[in-house]
Each structure stands twice: as C-alpha cells, then as structure tokens.
C-alpha cells in the first residue's frame, strides 16, 4: 500500500499499457491490475489525500470515507469479473477500455471536489463508448454516437453547474448541495441523465444492448451506479428523488414485458432497480442510504451475472432475441443455472442477494409511511420478478425448443459467472459481511418471518399469474419488433422536425458550392485567356523585332550622343 496513491490512477495508467503485452501475458496482467488496485484500496486508511490546486482553487482528488469506500470496492469487483469474463477474447479493446472506464468511475467516486468529479465523469463517457463500438457493426457505431452525445452532454451540463455553483457559494468541494440555485439544479440534471431518470433514460436501453457481449457486462456496472453514488453524496434527502425513483421502478417494467431483445429487457430492469436506489437516496435516512449502497453493491453483481448469461447466449447463438431462442438449457446447462441464480437475486428471493438489500429500502419507505410510494415499490418488485426473474430464463433457456444446439459458454465466461453467482448467494446467506461495510452502522434484520413469508407470497403469486397467463395464452408472445420509447423523439421526431432546416441548409450549401464552382471556372478562364497556352502574355514573339528595336534604340542613343 502506498499512502495517497489513488487506485483509479493505478487502473487508468496500467490500462494504457495493456496493448503492449503479448498474449498470454496480457491475460495475467489484466486480471492482476484490478486486483493490485483493489488491494491498494482495501489497505488504504480513510481520509483526504492527493490535494492539488488549479487557479488557486483547492482540489481534493482522493477522498476515502464510508460512502466512497463501498462504491470503490464494488467497482473493483465488477472490473475483475468483467475482465475475467472477456479473457477468451484476444481483442485488446475490452480490457483497455474496460479498465480505463472502471478507473474513471472509481476516480469519480473518490473525487472530493467537483472539478475532479467532472474530469473523471467525462472520462467514463469517452472510455466506455469503445465497448459499444467494439461490436463493429453499423448499428453499434450509430448507437455509440448517440450514447456519446448524451454522456458528454451530461458532463458539459455538470461543468456549467459546477462553475455556477462555485460562483454562487465559493465552494468547490463535492458535498451536500441543494436545488435552490441554478448551479445546484444543473448538477442535479447532469447526475439525473447518467442515472437514467424517467424521460432521460433511453440512452441506456438504446446503447447497452448494442455493445459486445463482454462490453455490456462492464457497461452495466459503472455509469449508472456512479450516478447513484453522486446523488447520495450531493442530494441525499431531496424529496423529489422519492417520486422520480418510484416512477423509475414502475414504468420500465411495462416496456420490459413487450421487449424482444433479452439484453434490452435487462436494460429496462436495470432502470427499474436504479429506481429503488433513487427512492432510498431521496428518503436519505441512515437506513435508506445503507439500503441504497447495499442495493447498488448487490445489483452490480446480479445484473452483471444476468448480462453475462445473456452475453454467453449471444456469443454461442448469435442472437439475444426471445423470439429466436428457447430450449437452450440442453446446450448450456451451466449458463442456465447461473442465469436462474441471477434472476432469483434480482427478484429478491430469500437467501439471494437482492433480498437483503431491497428489503432495507422497502422497510425505509414503510418507516416513513409513504403509502403510495410503498405500493409502487411492491408492484415493481413483483414486476421485476415477472420480466427479469421469469421471462429472461424462460424464453432463453426453456419455452418452446428453438432447435438451436450450441456449445456451452467458454471457460472464462463460466468462471466469471460462477464467481458472480457464488457472491450473489453468499451475500444472501451471510448478509452480515455486506452490512459491515455499509456507510452507517446497521441495525437491521432481513430474515424475519414476516419479511420472508410476505416476500414469498408476492413472488409466488406473481409466478402463478405468469403461469396462468401462459396457459390461457394471454401472455404477449415474443415478436420481432421495435418498441417506441423516448429515443423516438431524437431519432425520428427531431429529424422530421428539422427536415425543413436541413433541406434549407442543404440548398444553401448546394448553391454556395455552385457559385464557388462558377467563380472558379471564371477565374481559371481569365487566367487561361491571359497567361494560358497561346494567350497574349505567354505568346512567343519573333526575336528579329527585338533585334531591330535594340538596333534602333542604339542608333537613337548614338545620334543623341553625337549631337
């Protein structure tokens, strides 16, 4: 351990060296790097380090405390799992971009001031887009561009907010802020974009399913949870977050039910799970904030596990569409079991990780007697089981046999899925380990008879509803389709609305170029006429005339001289 050395820098600088290593050393290096960085974090004492200044503004580039530690730790675990998952792939882009991305997210979580936060905030955007582009398809390229515009946009709004906030308050440190000033509002909006607030959410469902199998696993871990951390640091106890979060838990599940691309279904459920964390941040009590941190921790693991299982399916079958899949448990039994463990965890089954973290949040909401919000969260809990817990494993691995016979996932993927699955169960069975690293002292017992029975009632009757609707053929079948979401507004609406403008711009540039071409032709024509071949300036004249002229002038000169 080197005191004051930010683990983020180990990752970012170390990641830049990845392409220099030949295989098989690169494989060893990319796993060792996040492990070394994690060791540096775990052994490092709490406090404020690596202070610097820019234009006499004091910066605090490495702040380690109760809240930043747990996020730094889970980001490291996600980085290790993400690189193990992708190790079979010789493409150096995954470990390089992935580890820079992880380092940037960790650096942002350890930022003690808003300038440092901004720098790492933008670095997460720039590094992560390569995980989408690594798919190397036309649609991935376009989705990556849309992703980049929105992510960089969030950073620009953040910078504007930081500048105004500094002017208004004179402080640059990253601590509690409020929504009273314009600066505070802009920073909140920047966080909200990355956190995929309702109507700002669709970059997530648009881009994550377009990334590579390994890319989506890494993408799912960092950006949105960094935003949850930033909200918990800056806006804990902001009432508006309760309602934003409640809406976030509920609306994505409707889209998830009718979505065909199973990785997009997972992206919707990611949105839904973020909602639980946002509600908890909005409540802002120690129990709620513990719940938010614990849920972020568990969520990163089970969401990565679910994306890993779907990534394995994508790799082996070439598709993730529910309408094309089915019966894969015969070919990929290990992946099936891991997917079911991930599904049980996200659905918060007792003895799985989601149960010990989500119940904290639901209890915090109940403790505040927010009846309507509580009803929405219970509905969302049933809904997430419905689409992530049942739909994902059912349509991929069971349902009607698609006839697809493929290999089981490669060893690296199985190892990563196995570790993630073990962690999901481990946290569910021994929640005390997770509770011991939460930001506030924990006085919470997840396994009471009431908690377990009511949760099982909710889940089992949701499963019953699914079964009944499948048997009666009410359940909407998986269809090859695109469902409109808010991205319609900028992918179709804005293009249509801007059509007159773009047409006018096209006409203007066209006429401008025509005029330029004419001008060029005329200039060249004039040039040709004067100095071109055979033009009067370049015409060769008879030398006898010149001799006669010289003789004549000499004669005149002589005559004048003699006079």
């Amino acid at each position, binding site marked *: 351990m080197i005191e004051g050395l930010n683990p983020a820098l180990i990752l970012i600088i170390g990641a830049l060296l990845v392409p220099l290593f030949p295989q098989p050393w690169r494989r060893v290096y990319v796993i060792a790097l996040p492990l070394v960085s994690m060791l540096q974090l775990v052994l490092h004492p709490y406090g404020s380090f690596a202070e610097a200044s820019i234009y006499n503004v004091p910066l605090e580039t490495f702040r380690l405390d109760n809240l930043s530690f747990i996020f730094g730790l889970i980001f490291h675990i996600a980085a290790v799992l993400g690189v193990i998952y992708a190790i079979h792939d010789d493409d150096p882009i995954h470990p390089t971009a992935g580890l820079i991305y992880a380092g940037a997210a960790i650096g942002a979580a350890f930022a003690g001031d808003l300038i440092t936060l901004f720098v790492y905030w933008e670095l997460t955007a720039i590094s992560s887009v390569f995980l989408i582009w690594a798919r190397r398809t036309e649609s991935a390229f376009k989705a990556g561009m849309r992703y980049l515009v929105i992510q960089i946009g969030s950073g620009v709004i953040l910078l504007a907010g930081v500048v105004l906030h500094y002017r208004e308050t004179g402080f640059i440190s990253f601590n509690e802020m409020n929504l009273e000033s314009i600066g505070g509002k802009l920073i909140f909006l920047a966080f909200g974009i990355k956190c995929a607030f309702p109507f700002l959410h669709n970059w997530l469902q648009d881009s994550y399913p377009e990334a590579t199998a390994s890319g989506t696993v890494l993408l799912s871990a960092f950006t949105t949870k960094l935003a949850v951390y930033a909200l918990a640091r800056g806006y804990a106890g902001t009432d508006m977050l309760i309602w934003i979060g409640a809406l976030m838990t509920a609306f994505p599940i409707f889209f998830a039910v009718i979505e065909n691309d199973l990785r997009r279904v997972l992206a919707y459920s990611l949105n839904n799970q973020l909602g639980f964390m946002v509600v908890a941040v909005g409540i802002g009590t120690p129990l709620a904030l513990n719940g938010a941190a614990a849920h972020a921790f568990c969520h990163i693991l089970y969401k990565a596990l679910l994306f890993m299982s779907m990534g394995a399916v994508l790799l082996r079958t070439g598709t993730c569409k529910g309408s094309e899949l089915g019966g894969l448990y015969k070919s990929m039994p290990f992946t099936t079991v891991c997917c079911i463990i991930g599904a049980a965890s996200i659905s918060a089954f007792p003895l799985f990780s989601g149960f010990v973290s989500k119940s904290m949040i639901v209890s915090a909401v109940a403790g505040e*007697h927010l009846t309507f919000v509580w009803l929405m969260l219970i509905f969302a809990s049933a809904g997430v089981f419905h689409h992530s817990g049942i739909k994902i494993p059912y349509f991929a691995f069971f349902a009607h046999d698609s006839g697809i016979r493929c290999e089981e996932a490669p060893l690296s993927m199985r190892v990563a899925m196995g570790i993630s699955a073990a962690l999901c169960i481990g946290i569910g069975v021994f929640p005390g380990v997770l509770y011991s690293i939460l930001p506030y002292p924990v006085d919470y017992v997840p396994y009471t008879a009431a908690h377990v029975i009511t949760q099982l009632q*909710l889940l089992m009757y949701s499963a019953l509803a699914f079964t009944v609707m499948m048997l009666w053929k009410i359940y*909407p079948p998986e269809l090859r389709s695109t469902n409109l979401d808010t991205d319609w507004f900028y992918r179709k609406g804005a293009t249509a609305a801007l059509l007159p403008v773009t047409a006018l711009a096209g006409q203007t540039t066209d006429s401008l170029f025509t005029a330029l071409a004419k001008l060029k032709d005329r200039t060249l024509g004039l040039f040709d006429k004067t100095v071109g071949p055979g033009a009067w300036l370049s015409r060769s004249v008879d030398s006898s005339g010149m001799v006669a002229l010289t003789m004549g002038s000499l004669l005149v000169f002589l005559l004048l001289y003699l006079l």
Partner: protein
Amino acid sequence: MKEQQENTWFDKPANVKKIIFALCVVCALLLVAEFFYHKHAYFAVEEWFGFYAFYGFIMCVLLVLAAKVMRVFLMRDEDYYD
C-alpha cells in the same frame, strides 16, 4: 446424441404439469402461513388477509394487460430505425 437430448425431463408434458401443481401447492401453503406469523404492519392494507399474494397476482395480470395495450401503440417493425 440428438435423440437423447430431445427426451429431457422438461420435455414431457406430465412433468410440466408436476411443476405447475407444485407451484399451486406452494401458493396454497403460503396462504395458510398467514395464520402463523406476527404481522409487523406499517400500513393498514398489510393487515388484510394475504395482501401480498393477491396484490402480486392482480398487479402482474394488470401489468401484462397494460403492456399488451401498449404494443398497439408502440410496436413497430424490427428495422423501423434503419
């Protein structure tokens, strides 16, 4: 090999029926369990008999029905954006 794969446990309709039957038994037992634990209720609705069970069932049905209606308005061809 292929023939062997086709005849897995889940492929037999009788076994699927067994799973559904087991689910029904579990659901029934969970309602019976209502009588055997102390409710630490924050809200009045929690006191209702089997609130979580019925709420979960009804809301899931409504969720799916609403999603089916959404399909009418929101569903487009797969290559809509291309």
